[in-house]
Structure formats: C-alpha cells, structure tokens
C-alpha cells in the first residue's frame, strides 16, 4: 500500500517552487549615471534643509543683537562651513536645473492641438529665476 504512494512522483515533490524575487543591492544606484543622477537629485534635499537651518540661525542671531550676529558671521567664515555651503550651492543649483527641465514633462503645454517644444516651456522658468535672483540681490545690496 505504501509502495504505491512512493511510486507516484507527481503526488509529492521535494522541490518548492521559487518566487521570482530578484535581490537588489543597497548600492543599486551606483552602477549607472541615470540612477546616480536620481540619487544626487534626491540628496539635494538634505542641503536644502541645511540652508534652512543656517537661515534660521542667522535670523536668531539678528534677533539677539549685534554681538550675536557678529559671532554668527564669524562662524560662517570657518573654512569647513564655507566648503559645506559651496557644496550645498552646487547641489541646489542642480536641483533647480532638473526641476525647471522637468516642468515640460510634468505639464506639457499645447497650442492649437500641438505640443510646444520643451525648450519653450522650460525657458520662462529660467527667465523667472534670473529676475527673482536679480531682485533679491537688489533688495539686499542697495
């Protein structure tokens, strides 16, 4: 009786069917420039947060009086802080460029049923960037 069951290989098998679950490394984004670019763009947000913290420290120092503000300025002249801020600047400019260039894909503009070329949709962002930057410089420096 028992022999019958062991003769029938279809009724039971030792092999468990494997799920298709490819293992992705934690460093999956290092291999290809597109993936690396994606991660660098996402990391720019960390420098955005650093900038906000510095700005809040500046306002706090301004609020506390001339001595506190002078001390804050002294801290900002530290070479390590300068290096951090230069790196931040490049990351945030990278964020800005990728952000403006994405706009045509995020909201394609159609005129008379035809899609406008992407350059024409992105261009106003760059013009606005220039005008806003010039205005901030004028307010701060004049």
């Amino acid at each position, binding site marked *: 009786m028992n022999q019958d069951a062991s003769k029938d290989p279809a009724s039971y098998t030792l092999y468990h069917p494997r799920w298709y679950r490819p293992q992705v490394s*934690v460093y999956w984004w290092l291999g290809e420039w597109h993936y690396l670019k994606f991660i660098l763009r996402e990391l720019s947000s960390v420098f*955005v*947060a650093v900038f906000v913290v510095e700005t809040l420290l500046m306002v706090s120092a301004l609020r506390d009086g001339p001595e506190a503000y002078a001390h804050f300025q002294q801290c900002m002249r530290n070479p390590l802080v*300068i290096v951090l801020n230069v790196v931040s600047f490049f990351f945030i400019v990278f964020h800005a460029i990728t952000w403006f260039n994405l706009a045509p894909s995020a909201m394609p503009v159609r005129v008379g049923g035809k899609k406008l070329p992407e350059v024409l949709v992105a261009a106003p962002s760059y013009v*606005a960037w220039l005008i806003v930057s010039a205005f901030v410089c004028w307010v701060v420096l004049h």
Partner: protein
Amino acid sequence: MTKPSNEAFFWMLFSAGGVVAALLIPVQLFLFFIAFPLGWLQAPAYDSLLSLVRMPLVRLYLFILCSLPLFHWAHRFRYTLYDGLKVKHLTGLIFVLCYGGAVLGTVIAAYLLWTT
C-alpha cells in the same frame, strides 16, 4: 474601492517647496553664506539688515523661504530612505521624523520671525 490618501496633499507641499527652493535658495545661499563670508561682496550692516528683516513683507518672504523647502526636504528624504537605502521596515518612524522635523522648523521660523 481605493482608500483616500493624503499623498496628493504632501505632494503639493513638496512641489511648492521645490519651486521656492529652485527659485530663491541659490541666490540667498550665494549672497549670505558664500559671497559675504568670503568678502566678495560688502555685507549689509547689522542695523540695515535688522530693519529689512522687520518689514512685514520680508518676514512673510523669509517664512515661506524656510517653511515650504522643509516640506520639500521631508518628502524627498523620506523616499530616498525608502527607495535609495531600502529601509522599508521603518516607514512609520521615517514619516514622523521627516514631517515632524518640517513642522518643527516651521514653528521655529514663525516664532523667530514674529519676535524679531
């Protein structure tokens, strides 16, 4: 039926913060944290900077400059941790830390700008 989700709300904050960060942070960062400390440009004196910051419109500007980009950071950093570093098991904690940080920064900004 799918569950209603808050994702659109957070995405709008992310998107608004992305615009503010792209348009305003490069010039602000360059002036205050690179050009002035290095002496490339003459930094405004304490009194004139203080009176500038006390103008209502400038207070509002600085509030927006600080708050919205923090929500932009919260969204991006959250997904960097989920997708980039694949820490999916801490989803709830990461969410609370990221958006908690953004809310805390917003409250601090409001308090500082209100009392300056």
